[in-house]
């Protein structure tokens, strides 16, 4: 057989085979030694998948356990355009469900992308409707979405979660680290159909879910607070307002409403000003609501009693300046109780003058003015009480009736809370408890200090009840209950250091039932259209709120 083949040909063939064998051997040798790692990595990548398992964000609940914010996986609709048989037909079918023009969907499908989202985080009914269409080339991918079942309710308390899953503002911002939890990892081997191999490698570091928060907020009270605030703001065409409800017995915040407000689910279209929580971050000159603090200081230091009298001539002179009552009224012989009933500026100046600068300053600081309360919410303002060294002689008079000092609605509410509870100033708080795998951890109320004695607080309560029953705050009366409170009308400082003409801030601070206070509320309206009569609207709002709060808390009437 081989006789016909020349030896040269045989040698060439042999050489070729030998070379090929050598090359193949070298290649195999290379993959077994130098290229082994890359080969292994490639094979492992084909087989294994390494995933980050996101932790479930904690749920936020009200004091009764009702959901205020929770995270749910919604389905995002994606498309692989090459697999969608008829773009025009698919777009026409999807348009009404996705509430997107068919042309937009068609252009997205025809954009040349291999894979794209058509709509992210679809509402469940829409996702089901799309699923029912069974259009080839469309699919769903779950994506977490923060949901607020009560819509805009308590928006400034809750804050919101941005697209990156980070909490912003309010509780979502302040407690973001706790709420977010710690993500886990999962490494598994998968088959060609991307199914997890039951007998394959599986290593997992489980995620640690975020902590659930139980707030002090009461959904019923919050709803009532937002309703009455909105009504008051709309009636007065006020650019802003805030309403705060606290439990004076421990400083728990029951409701916190701020106007303008926003919907946490639609932050992108919200007015930036609406994101601001005015109840804790807005400092304003409070006006006559401060008279209660001035008189509390006077009574606590025994320089005056409720029956101490002075001769009201309409104005008082202090530091060479005349400080007058509203609308130039003069009341003649007036008791300290009547100073509150009539809201006499000259009377407040009388008490402050007897008290002196230093004690007045010390009491203001003891009531917590000029210092942040330490509430567990972001962006709290400290207000402003100028250092005593910077006071002019006239300041002791103006501060006595709440001008020349800036406070937040929260600080004012805490001060009235101290009067209501017998003289203890608490640190306000919003998170009542945290719940994690170890169980529930409750927040202990913190008593900061006692600015006044229980006797002084008791006396003040009686005087403030008289202010509502017989005085200027009659609009806050609630049938069947004793109510204590005080109105406030303050001028607004302008940038040039003077006061704005004909514009005011109206407020009301009060609590009920006065004998065993269950709540303290402060309502503030900025620039009400009825100007000096803005306090009437504020009192009316307090009345409406008190009716709802007392009913929902099932508080027994303390009056016939």
């Amino acid at each position, binding site marked *: 057989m081989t006789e016909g083949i020349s030896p040269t040909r045989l040698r060439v063939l042999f050489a070729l085979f030998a070379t090929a064998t050598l090359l193949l051997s070298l290649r195999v040798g290379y993959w077994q030694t130098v290229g082994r790692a890359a080969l292994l990595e490639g094979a492992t990548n084909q087989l294994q998948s390494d995933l980050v398992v996101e932790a479930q964000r904690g749920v936020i609940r009200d004091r009764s356990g*009702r*959901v205020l914010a*929770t995270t*749910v*996986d919604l389905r995002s609709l994606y498309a692989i355009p090459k697999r969608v048989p008829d773009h025009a037909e698919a777009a026409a079918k999807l348009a009404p469900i996705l509430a997107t023009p068919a042309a937009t969907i068609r252009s997205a499908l025809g954009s040349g992308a291999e894979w794209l989202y058509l709509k992210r985080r679809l509402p*469940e009914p829409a996702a089901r409707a799309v699923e029912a269409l069974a259009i080839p080339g469309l699919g769903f991918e*779950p994506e977490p979405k923060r*949901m607020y*079942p*009560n*819509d805009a*309710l308590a928006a400034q308390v809750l804050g919101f979660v941005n697209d990156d899953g980070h909490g912003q503002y309010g509780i979502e911002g302040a407690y973001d680290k706790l709420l977010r939890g710690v993500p886990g990892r999962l490494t598994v081997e998968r088959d060609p159909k991307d*199914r*997890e*191999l*039951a*007998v394959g490698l599986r290593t997992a570091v489980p995620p640690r879910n975020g902590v659930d928060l139980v707030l002090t907020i009461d*959904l*019923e009270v919050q*709803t009532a607070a*937002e*309703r009455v605030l909105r009504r008051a703001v709309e009636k007065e065409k006020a650019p802003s307002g805030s309403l705060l409800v606290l439990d004076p017995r421990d400083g728990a915040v029951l409701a916190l409403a701020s106007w303008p407000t926003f919907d946490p689910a639609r932050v992108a279209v919200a007015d930036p000003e609406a994101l601001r929580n005015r109840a804790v971050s807005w400092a304003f000159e409070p006006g006559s609501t401060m008279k209660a603090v001035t008189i509390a200081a006077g009574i606590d230091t025994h320089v005056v009693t409720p029956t101490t009298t002075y001769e009201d001539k309409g104005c008082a002179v202090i530091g060479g300046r005349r400080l007058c009552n509203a609308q130039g009224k003069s009341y003649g012989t007036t008791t300290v109780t009547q100073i509150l009933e009539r809201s006499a500026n000259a009377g407040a100046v009388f008490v402050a003058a007897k008290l002196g600068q230093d004690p007045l300053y010390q009491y203001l600081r003891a009531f917590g003015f000029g210092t942040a309360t330490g509430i567990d919410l972001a962006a709290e303002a400290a207000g402003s009480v100028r250092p005593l060294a910077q006071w002019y002689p006239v300041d002791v008079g103006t501060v006595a009736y709440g001008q020349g000092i800036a406070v937040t609605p929260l600080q004012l509410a805490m001060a009235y809370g101290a009067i209501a509870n017998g003289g203890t100033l608490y640190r306000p708080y919003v998170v009542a408890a945290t719940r994690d795998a170890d169980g529930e951890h409750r927040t202990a109320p913190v008593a900061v200090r006692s600015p006044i004695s229980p006797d002084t607080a008791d006396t003040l309560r009686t005087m403030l009840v008289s202010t509502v029953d017989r005085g200027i705050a009659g609009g806050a009366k609630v*049938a*069947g209950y004793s109510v204590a409170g005080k109105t406030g009308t303050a001028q607004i400082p302008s940038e040039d250091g003077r006061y704005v003409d004909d514009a005011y801030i109206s407020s009301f601070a009060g609590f009920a039932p006065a004998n065993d206070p269950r709540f303290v509320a402060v309502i503030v309206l900025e620039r009400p259209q009825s100007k000096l009569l803005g306090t009437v609207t504020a009192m009316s709002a307090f009345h409406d709120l008190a009716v709802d709060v007392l*009913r929902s808390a099932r508080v*027994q*009437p303390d009056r016939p």
Partner: protein
Amino acid sequence: MRRPFQARPRGGHAVPRRRSGVGTTWEVRTFVVVSAAICAVFLLVVLYLSQATTVATSGYETQRLERVRDELRRQNALLEVESARLDSPARIEAEAKRLGLVRAASVPVVQAEPIAAKR
């Protein structure tokens, strides 16, 4: 030519026959042992494959059930949100208003102590 089976060894009786029996037994035994080993290995392989298949099938079934569980949990979470939305006091107030309901002008309160004192 030698006839080994016909030659009678010294002093012995029927040794060749015995030798023949031992050889046969050994062959049979070897055959049986090897066959048994092959069968055992085969059975073990079958058993292993059967178990591996069962585990794999169970694994896929577990995954399917996990997906069902996750979906049920998701649906449950959605229902909780819907329940919270329907329970919202603001929604109930709006619905009551739509139905023409008005707020009670007064709420009578029954004091428990005087009633208890009468009994």
